[in-house]
């Protein structure tokens, strides 16, 4: 027993000489890209652009670009990623990618987009919680804009999409795994934020694109996106609304959904309770007027999006989720085609004052 133990321990120490047998790179010899942009080049190749922060040498206080942009092309997304690895002087480690921006021209092909998302999900290197965004701009322009204004201050990009309720309730975020989920889900679709390079700020939020099984069916404005967020139980706290003759701030919002299934016709009673604070108003406007106006406006907005969504059979509000326990599972896959077009939503807004 003792002898055996000793031999085992010796074997263990022999093992230590293996150190360095495979590719271990210290952290300062790795490049950590933060943002990856994907676009379709003219010759149908993938063009991948990565923004890589360059750590300052300690003691050095130079200003100037502290990150750089690397671009490469390839037959597929993965080969383009590999190309960056080959061309870079240090090892490239994609495990810190926070944002993946897809140029609009790539999103037109449903099959390719699906493939891309699946690849991102299965990739061992790229984390599945990286955000997805779509841009109308050229990807290089967007990234160099990020580069100029942000440098290494990387968290600000993440914060852009996760400001949290109370700060900017319009923004939606779409991590890869959520997008992947929506590719397969019978009852839920997802919105992906659309951004542009801003003039003064890093990014400009332009609303969102609705993705249905990998196909973009609809564009919605930031304001409308907020409504969608409301249905996903994200609070609208902090949102400032202008109702023409007054502007108000939402201080609290709750939503209650009741679902009924009548002869295969789904029906949702949806009650939105808003608590508002009036910031400014024109003279002679009563509280009641503001309240009624806001209720009407919101309802109108909702029905507007909902109608459009119903036309394109995309369930952006995720109503289908509520009906999962009322429709047999085998029938659920027909939700978008069979039930959703017949869905009636009774949307009521109740506004109360602080």
């Amino acid at each position, binding site marked *: 027993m*003792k002898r055996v133990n000793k031999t085992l321990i010796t074997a263990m120490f022999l093992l230590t000489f293996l150190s360095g047998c495979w590719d271990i790179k210290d952290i300062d010899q790795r490049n950590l890209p933060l943002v990856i942009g994907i676009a379709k080049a003219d010759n149908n190749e993938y063009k991948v652009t990565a923004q890589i922060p360059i750590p300052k040498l300690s003691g050095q206080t130079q200003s100037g670009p502290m990150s750089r942009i690397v671009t490469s092309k390839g037959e597929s997304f993965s080969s383009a990623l590999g190309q960056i690895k080959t061309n870079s002087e240090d090892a490239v480690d994609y495990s810190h990618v926070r944002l993946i921006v897809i140029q609009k021209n790539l999103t037109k092909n449903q099959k390719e987009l699906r493939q891309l998302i699946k690849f991102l999900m299965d990739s061992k290197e790229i984390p599945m919680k990286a955000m997805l965004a779509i841009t109308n701009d050229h990807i290089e322009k967007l990234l160099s804009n990020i580069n100029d204004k942000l440098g290494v201050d990387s968290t600000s990009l993440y914060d852009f999409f996760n400001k949290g309720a109370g700060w900017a309730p319009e923004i939606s975020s779409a991590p890869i795994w959520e997008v992947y989920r929506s590719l397969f889900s019978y009852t839920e679709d997802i919105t992906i934020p659309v951004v542009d390079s801003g003039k003064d700020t890093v990014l400009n939020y332009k609303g969102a694109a609705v993705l249905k099984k990998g196909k973009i069916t609809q564009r919605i404005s930031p304001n409308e996106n907020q409504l969608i967020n409301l249905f996903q139980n994200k609070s609208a706290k902090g949102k400032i609304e202008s109702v023409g003759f007054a502007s108000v701030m939402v201080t609290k919002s709750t939503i209650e959904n009741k679902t009924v299934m009548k002869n295969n016709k789904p029906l949702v009673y949806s009650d939105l309770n808003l608590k508002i604070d009036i910031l400014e108003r024109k003279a002679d406007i009563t509280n009641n007027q503001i309240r009624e106006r806001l209720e009407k406006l919101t309802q109108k907005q909702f029905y507007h999006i909902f109608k459009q969504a119903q036309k394109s059979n995309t369930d952006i509000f995720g109503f289908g989720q509520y009906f999962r326990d009322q429709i047999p599972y085998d029938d659920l896959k027909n939700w978008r085609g069979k039930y959703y077009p017949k869905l009636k939503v009774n949307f009521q807004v109740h506004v109360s004052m602080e």
Partner: protein
Amino acid sequence: MVNVVKEIQARFSRHDDFFFEEEQKDKMPFYLMGFNTLIDLAKSNLYVRQVAASSSSVNELFINLSDQLDVDTEKLIKAILEGKLVIVLGNGKRNAIVDPVSRNLRRNIDKPQSESPLQGPLDAFVEDIKTNIGLIRKRLDTERLCHSSHEVGKLASRKLSMLYIKGRAPDTLIKKINKQIKQIDTDIETVDDLNKYFGQRSSIVSHVFLTELPSEVTHLLKKNRVVLLLDNYPFALVFPNLLLDMFCIASDRNYPSLLAYALRTLRVVGAVINVLLPALYVAIVSVNPEILKIDLALFVSESRRGIPFPALLETMIMVVLVDLTLEAIVRLPKSVGPTITMVGGIILGQAMVQAKLVSPLLVIVVTAIVISGSVVSGIQNSLYIRLLRYPILILASIYGVLGVFIGFLFTIVYLASLTSNGIPYTAFRIRERGTQNES
């Protein structure tokens, strides 16, 4: 001159500190013998004379002086070696072993040197075994405190006392230790010599827990342990050594219990940090940087830029240097110690970072391990914890975080596999109790 005296003199002919004096009582010569390095000759002489003056006959003198009368020569020689005064009558018919006035070769009871109890009793064990037992007896005035003393050793014999509380310490354990002590057939110079008899163990953890504090010993005695005391060794050896001894100190219980628990948790955290932190640094820097949040990763990357060593080497250098410094401080005389600390601090902390040999982050890590290494009680414990981190460090450099974890598991299993006389090292307490009644 009689045979006995001649024989003794012959035995000690190579000992210049052996004295041989002749006295008389009623015209009967008698001889005093002993070592003047152990016996205060002048005072002992005076004592003998006083007794002689008050005794009416030689016979009475001998009876008055001692109750060890008329023993054989071998015993006399042994008594001389032990520092006793031997008196032999001129005709060799009578002899006696007298307890003389000894030279003061003992230290006084002093403050503990290797432990610093806060708000606890401040006396510590000394070299003299009787004083030590006395210190314990003073605290535990119960008849159930048992004491069995042994003399062990081949060349030089050494006193070994075993103390336990009857009815607390398990009977089987006492029996086993008694048996093991009786098996001792070599000299016991160090604790490790003794350790061997408690079971073969080529391990870094000792069977016994060393402590200098009588208060700690009495506490552990009440917790069903057995305490061994060696003559001329100012530490009590508590058997068995348990993992929790490292974290729980008797003087903790002078605080409110919540505070005591917080302190103990802190010590556990310190020990874990000490073992894992350098390994975690290596793992995160060289194998698994992806587990850090990006801000932190960039910060680490920045602090390491331009450093020529790989992370493992860098960490090894620093950890070894720090261990060297710690060892040097112990070895050095107190007047030089602070210099080393200062020079070490400047070189390790400042110069190496400025020369870009190690990253500033590593200096923080090393500082943390130096501090956390000393929170556990017992020097030996803190030493073996320091040793444990090297294998984990190497594993971490190969397997990253996985290596750290497996190394930690390995440590746990190793500690769990240790037993002393059937009592596992990781036991929380000794549950089994002995019987109270003599059977």
